[in-house]
């Protein structure tokens, strides 16, 4: 199993702890409202992603357990 990171921008208020805690996994998204987008979550360990989830004040980041992408590589 691996995890997939989903950012719910309706819940997001752009506080940015995700970008501060994991700057190689998240970055600011282009556009009018300062909200993050995914960059490269594979550069950090899963536990840090869990910390990012916990540190998001509006719980706008969700980790979903998914099958390893390799498994769907038919």
């Amino acid at each position, binding site marked *: 199993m691996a995890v*997939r990171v*989903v950012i*719910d*921008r*309706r*819940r*997001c*208020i*752009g*506080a*940015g*702890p995700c*970008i*501060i*805690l*994991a*700057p*190689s*996994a*998240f*970055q*600011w998204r*282009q*556009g*009018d*409202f300062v*909200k993050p*987008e995914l*960059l*490269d979550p*594979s*550069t*950090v*360990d*899963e*536990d*840090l992603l*869990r*910390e990012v989830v*916990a*540190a*998001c*004040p*509006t*719980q706008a980041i969700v980790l*979903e357990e*998914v*099958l390893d992408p*390799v*498994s*769907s*590589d*038919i």
Partner: protein
Amino acid sequence: MGLSQPDAASQGTQTILFTDLEGSTDMRIRLGDAAANQVFNEHDQLIRFQIDAGGGTDIKGLGDGFMALFTSANNAIDTAVSIQRAIEERNAANPDKPISVRIGINSGDVTYAKGDAHGTAVHAASRVAAKAQGDQILISQVVFDLAGSLGPTRVVDRGLFWLKGFPERWRLYEVLWRAKDAPGDRTARAVRDASARAFDPSSPRSAGPIVGRKRELRAIEEQLAATTSGLRALVLQGEAGIGKTRMLEAAVDLAETAETPYLTLDVAADEELRGPFLLFRSLLNSPRVAAIAREAMALEPVDRARDAIGGRSTDGDEGLSPQEKMLRIFDEVASAVAAFTRDRPVALLFDDLQWADEDSIQLIRYLVRTLSTAPIFLLITVRPYSETSAGSDKLIADLDRMRVTQVLRLERFNRVETGELLLNLLGAPVDDQTLQSLHARSEGVPFFIEELARAYREADALQLMDGTWTMTRLSGATVPSSVQSLIERRLAQLSDDPRALLADAGVLGRRFKLSDLAPVLARIRNETQRQDWELAEELDMAVELGLLVEEPEGSTYDFSFSHDQIRASLLADLPRRRQQAIHGAIAEVLGSREDEADLSMLAYHSMKAGDSEKAVSCALEAARSALIGSAPEESIRIVDTTLPAASEPAERIAMLRVKDDALAVLDRGMDRIANLAEMTALTSAVASPELETEVKLRRASASRATEDYEAAVDLAAGLRSIAVDRGDLELELEACLELGQALTRSDIGEAYWPLGEVDLDAADEAYSRALELARELGSRAKEAVALRELAVIEGGRVRRSIIAAEEEGTSRFEILAMGPTLFTGAKELAEQAFKIFEELGDQRGAMSALISMAYSHVTDPTAHGMAGRIEHVRALHNSRRGQVTDSQRAKEDALMLFSIHTYARLHIQPDLALLRGREAFEAARGLGDRWLEALAAGGMSLTYASFGATADSIAWLDRAASAAMSVPSTSMARRVEMWRGACSAARGESEEVKTHFERAIDLAGTKNPAGQAEAYCALAMETCKLWASTGEAALLERAAQAAHDTLDATGFMRGQLPWESVAHAVLAVVADADDRREEAEEEARIALSTLDGLTHILHFVNVLWAAGRVLIGNQAPEANDMAQQIAQGLGYLSMNIIDPEIRSKWFGVEAHRELAQLAGFELPDYLGSSQEPADLDEHELALLREITSRSYETKHDQTEVTDLLSKLGVDSETEAIEYAIKAGIRWR
């Protein structure tokens, strides 16, 4: 020649140049002594002439090379270039007898005595030369620095290298001496040369730096150093192609260049050749051993050992039993090895031990036992799984029992390391997409990476574009034959039946279940279904050979192919008709189960079996359910895979629709536009007005996603007119919602307040009409959506009026006092939306309504900042949550407290961070959530450390560590080390800082490059600050090294990484301390320009401190502006720290104090003095806080307010707010 000798027994700083003639022994053998001597003489004359001409002092000839000293680094480099060019010319004239010289240059203090030069710098120079390849010039960092601007000479950074005898890695640069053409071409050519050399089979692989194996290199060095007290061993395990042999070569290199050089004896077992004592036969019969034996005066014991192994009888041998003969062999070999160790330590290195014969392994075990006290370093490389590894397992167990070994497993590379290896191989970086592709294809196996890069280079599929290698043909590149043959060799060890079984299994996928394979085989082979265990048994050998990997227990699958190329090789040999039949059988098996999870597999296998209809219907269903399960990428993948099978327009439209929905979730506007183009074309084919409007709506939304708002407004407004003409209310509602989003330039639910250029009236009109229509049509969900957006628009109007009032001179405190009434309208709308969302159970909608409410509450957005808003969201969330259980509520509250703590800590609001951190810690304890408890305690420790409260920091560190013990993981261990490192830094303990951060680096390992970068960065900055306060030179060096390591670690990561800025800031301080002012200022500027100060404020303070020291300290041109900006920033920061005691402690930390001094900043008086309202009771304090924040809606008694105002000695609520802010009671 007129070469002068320097004065005897003197000392001075010099640049030392070493040359080394490559392959001199081979040349002697090839050309014969006479001809070789002539070439050597030519070589000597040529180099002496160039050294003399370059102003160098020839100290000594070294047989195959020279050492020369220069007073100028530039002269040394110029001379090296002249030497290489002269050799190039000479070789052109003598193509049959080419020579090739490697050159290394270093600078430093040199002592002359007895006509020779000594010193660490001289040692290092010879090590640098040893790292060079033929025709190459390598220079150390210090030479690079001393040389300054090198004029037309180009130099490239070749990365970090271990130099034997030096504890830290050295950064080496290559001088590109072949530069003759235009500068651009020169670089490109040099890079191409370097990459050609890297792939030249005759060039030794060990010449390049080793990527990603720091831990292993350190283990080798540790074990080498420990043999003084007896035998030490290292076992390196890893799959084929992982780089075991490369590590063995590195070990040979390290052993031979050790302080006391080792005699190295290395031998590789062969996969195909087996025989009694074969490993030792090949070792003892090698010419190298003969030479070593001569050197070690051990010819006799070696001969005896050779005879014994070769079965040549000696006196007294005849009557011995086979067992006794065996023992005799053991003894003779042990004596020979013991003889080698008389003068020097010995390194015995056995590669690929899984293929060694049992006798040889027994012999190694014997040697280990009998020579346990001898200075021997034993290195074994072995594959972790193998049918023939039983003997090696016993050997490893022996070593383990003797406690003399370390067993390390070489892991596959992560993407960062793949990038680093490619850089070394190709001499220039590869672009992101190429890296992604090569990493995915190689799966991080170094051998595959090298071979793929080589194959692509040879096929010209990699092109050097503007200094970056780019893959020109991303598809269609073939598997390199070397990779193919490696795989074929492994497959060849399987007998026919398991191989056929494996090939059939490969059709199922990279991973497969036995419960799928068994019925498929039964169908395809017309046999009774076999039991899972029977199949597992048959696959056993494939597992032993490392072709298959057993999935851990509890996984969905039972087995996976260890590399996808293995499966590809098997499938390549499987006839297409058979594959099709297997796909058909799989589809039948899956279809009979009606398992939803397997729908995408069913679609895929149906398509491969040629059943398009079934493929399309399954794919559609699978893609839809993937989208519902929020797996949009999976949904797109399913559509893309199956779309070729869909031939009917209706089928294609249905699939493209799902794909558009998925692309919309992923926000991929440009892809949507492309996808919708086909939908538009199909629309005309089916002539459906409904479809036409649907596609237009989708195009409007896609236009917004590409920020083409004008097009979006046009499309939405056009649709609205069509809807009105047709009297289609539902379409009008959709069009109005789309129009509203196009006008506010924001998706539903995502905006906080409309921005400057938004036409609020037009947006208001669109959403108001949407609200009307939603109510008329009874759509509660859309009603809520419209209400929420109208709330945001109303909030935006009020904000605009406040900004206008402020511009006209109304004070901030007056505006704060006006607060509640202004936002009533917005809050009411949001409240209505919230209620409907709650009724509908739409949590996301409810949260978006809450957020819009929170934003309406904040009258002055700058007064409280984001922390204030988060607190509002929390308060609203607590007061309005509907049907949740107590435990859910507690859990959510703990998380929210932790999030506020984190936010405050990361934004330097330590007082708020402590308050909420403690609450979060207690809440987590209450919940029994040890993980959150550890994180909260760790955050507390960091917060205390940030203002120098070290006793509290330690106390919280203990709590954190104790909680962390209950949730042990590598990640948690790394965190604890990071916290300890920070705490040690606050205590000024430089050695502990190093220890903890280095442990964190190790724990992060290769799987977590960001964790490594973060720890390197912390080590660099904290050590740099410790240097600033102690002046210990060693700390500065350590900081510089850590800064370089940081940059190495981040080199291949994307994004705006604060660690890079911090590293440059540290390098600025280092350069400044070395009086390299220009470089220091440049580094400081890079540091400042690459850091987003608003996001990474914690790092920003450090970077400002370092850059400020350099730029303000040296009165650089921007010094005044910078001081002003820092002072302003510190002013803002001081306002944010409400607690006066914590504030003054924070400003008392050495680096912060220095920063304030540099900027000429002083804490404002009113902030410095505590205006503690000690005489207010808790109730009054709460009331004052409510007045101040305007965030709660409690109706308070007017007399209570009046009493409070008189107690505070103020006349109005506005003055009360001013009082409260200055007294710092916002969060108490």
